[in-house]
Each structure stands twice: as structure tokens, then as C-alpha cells.
């Protein structure tokens, strides 16, 4: 199994069959929706890594609708639109609304799989960066606490040292008395 969970949305049964087969051969975990309405329902219930959707679909929810529903529910999910040549302008609009990319019909499957690889790599990179940041945060937080505790004790000890040297240098006080006061300062917490 590959590590991307994919939702494919298309209203054309022939395209659906073909895509399902291709994705299966490539070992992607795939869910198929027959139109935008069903896609939106799936998106509200399950989490996908990639939503692959036809741009023009009948029934109230088109590709843009699927894109919006996806971004609303899980902004981390990448949406790829599939579009006929005639609707390139719409695809560009969709890119502005946060689509990852678009593919032209008829689908070139090599191109599709390259794109999916790219998405998978980016997700891994994103995860690695997140892990790194988290690890750094934890380390930094720990280090900060230690450093600040040390800073406070250094400052306190410095205070004691100057008090002690002040006492010890008081020539007019008896030596034994001075030492005893100094010891008191040291043992005070």
C-alpha cells in the first residue's frame, strides 16, 4: 500500500472505473464518489490526503465546491482538479482558491502518478519539518528552564558573596563574629 489516501470524484462511470483500476494497480488506498454531493459527504466523514476531482459536475456541487468543502474541513488535504481544455480559466481560479494543481483531460496517468509522488514527498517533508520544530521546541523549553534556574541561583550566590565580603572586610568587628555572620549568610536559604 502507498501512503496516500485518495478520494476520486467524477460523474462519468467509465472514467471512474478506469481511474479506480489505475489507482488500485499503483496500490493507492482509494475512495470513489459519483458526484460532488457524495464527495462533500465523504469529506465531512473521513480524512483524505488527496482529493482528485473533476471540475465540471452536475448536481449543485462542482469541483470548486468540492475544493471549498475540503479546504474548510481539512486544510492539509491537497486538491487536484481535472479539467477539460475549455475550462482552463476555471482551473486557474481554483488554484487561487488553494488547489494544489490541475490536470487536463484526457488524463495522462504517468503525469498523475508523478504528481501524486510529488505530493507524497512534500507531505513527508512537511511532517519532518514539523517533527523537527516540535523536537526543537521541547529541547528549547527544557534548556530555557534549566538556564533560567541557573541564572537565578548565580544571581543569588553573587549577592551572598558580596554580602560576605562586605562583612569580612569590616575591620571594626571582631574576627570570630565576622566569620559567624558570614556562615549565617551562607546557610540562609
Amino acid at each position, binding site marked *: 500500500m502507498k501512503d496516500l489516501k485518495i478520494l476520486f470524484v467524477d460523474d462519468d462511470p467509465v472514467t471512474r472505473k478506469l481511474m479506480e483500476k489505475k489507482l488500485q494497480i499503483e496500490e493507492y488506498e482509494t475512495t470513489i464518489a459519483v458526484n460532488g454531493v457524495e464527495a462533500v459527504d465523504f469529506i465531512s466523514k473521513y480524512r483524505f490526503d488527496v482529493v482528485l476531482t473533476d471540475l465540471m459536475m452536475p448536481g449543485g456541487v462542482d469541483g470548486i465546491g468540492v475544493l471549498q468543502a475540503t479546504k474548510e474541513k481539512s486544510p492539509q488535504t491537497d486538491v487536484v482538479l481535472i479539467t477539460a481544455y475549455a475550462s482552463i480559466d476555471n482551473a486557474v481560479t481554483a488554484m*487561487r482558491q488553494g488547489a494544489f494543481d490541475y490536470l487536463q483531460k484526457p488524463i495522462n496517468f504517468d503525469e498523475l502518478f508523478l504528481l501524486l509522488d510529488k505530493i507524497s514527498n512534500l507531505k513527508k517533508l512537511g511532517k519532518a519539518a514539523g517533527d523537527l520544530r516540535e523536537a526543537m521546541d521541547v529541547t*528549547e*523549553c527544557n*534548556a*530555557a*528552564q534549566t*538556564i*533560567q534556574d*541557573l*541564572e*537565578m541561583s*548565580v*544571581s543569588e550566590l553573587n549577592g551572598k558573596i558580596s554580602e560576605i565580603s562586605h562583612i569580612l572586610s569590616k575591620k571594626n568587628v571582631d574576627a570570630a563574629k565576622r566569620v559567624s555572620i558570614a556562615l549565617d549568610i551562607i546557610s540562609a536559604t
Partner: protein
Amino acid sequence: MTKITPNEIKIISKYIYDISGIYLDQTKIYLFETRLGPLLEKEGFSSYSELYQKARADPGKKLEIKIIDAISTNETLFFRDTGPFEVLRHKVVPDIIDARSAKFSGLLPTSIRIWSAACSTGQEIYSIAIVLKELLPDMKKYNIKLLGTDISDAAVAQASYGKYNKFEIERGLAKDKLQKYFSLSGNTWKIKDEIRAMASFRKLNLMLPFAALGKFDIVFCRNVAIYFNMEDRKKLFNKIADLLAPDGCLIVGSTETLSGICPRFEPKRHMRSIFYQLKK
């Protein structure tokens, strides 16, 4: 990719030190190549020596600026480390206001000047501004001035625009603050005018004298001295001590200390964080 020679590393790191005080570890060859390599290519230079020579010879300092932008680490986020902003909200600002308003008993608006000494792309100063906005609903009663400075032109420019992409905005900002203080246009988030108007920005190299900035009540100098050597850190914090109000306070990065660096400051603890005040 063009390789950097040991001799070039020496020359370039000395040059970077001279223009910025940033002290680079000469064993980190990758740091030079990954940060300056792209600049080399863009400018069409064939070696690092050429970059150095051209930078030195450029009277407009355009190349120097590009080198600083490339080499400086601008890593920052909103409400970084949270602690300092809690200190600001619950301790430092209330203390200053109490002290000042007792002194002038409401005749003049209480003035508070705050400086973010290496503000990078502005997240720090806007976090401070948001804290003040929430803490002091009646802003008119106060004369608040926030100043952000940085050596990097690109960073200062972004801070001044107050524009952030979705990766920058996601870091450290709670959703309610995002909605309240930023507006989305296209793919970028922009700080709202009411917050933007509280701050001003300018370019400043902390290695140079800065007494002309005047006095400050609160100084944030976080995660910048870590790039300087000990001597320069001492000088920097001494200069900051010179322009801090007697009852003012200094906040440094969460993993930085001033022990052995500037004995004029003493650390004070509030909750889980530390801030510094001048010794009496």
C-alpha cells in the same frame, strides 16, 4: 554549485562580522554554501572571492544588504516562548503604569516606550502590541510607542507591511487573535491598521551606537546576541543598560543569560520567566 575555499571562508566571515557582528563558525562550510550560494548564482559571480570584492567595491551597499539578508537567521514567531508576554501583561506593564501614574497623577497621558531590538519580520512587536491592546482598553490614556529595528532590510520591510503567509501566520497565533487582528487578502494575512499604527520600524545595526534612539521603558532583545561573540554581547547589553529607564526592564531570549555579560542587570523572576532590571 561553486565550492568555497578555506581562504574564502576566512575572508567572507571576517567581512560578515565587520558589517553585522554576526560571528560565523568557520567549520560550517554548508552554512556559507547554502546561504550565499544562491546569491552567487543570481549575481552571476564565479567565486566567493568575486562576491566579496564586488560587495566591498559597491558604494550603494546593495550587495552588502543582500549578503546580510542571506546570512541572517530571521526565524521568529508570534508570541514566541509565551512567557515574556505573560510577564509583560501581568507584571511589567502594570508596574510601570502604577509607578508613572502615581508620579504624574493623571495630568499627562502615561507614556510607555518599548523597543524590539532585533524585530525580524515583526511578529515580536505585533505580539507586544496585541498584549497592550488587550491589557489597556482605554488606549487614549496612554502614550504608547513601539519601535522595531533590525539589520535586515528585507525583514524590516516585511515587518512594516505587516503581511504574513499562511505558514508564518499559523505559528504561535491563536485563532481568535488571528480573526481579531488580521485580515485575509488573497493568500496573505495583513495586520489590522489599529495594531500596525502602534508600531514604527527602522533599520538598525546593533553593533553601532544607538543612544540617539532615546530612553526606553521596556526592551526586547531576544535571540540576536546569540550570533555575536562575547565581547560584542557585553558591549551590546551595556549600551542597552544606558538607554533603559531606571525602573525599566529588559527581556532576553529564553535560552540566553546575562551572567558574566552585564553585571549592571539583575534577573527577576515572575512565574516561570525571567526579566532583567538595572541594579539599584
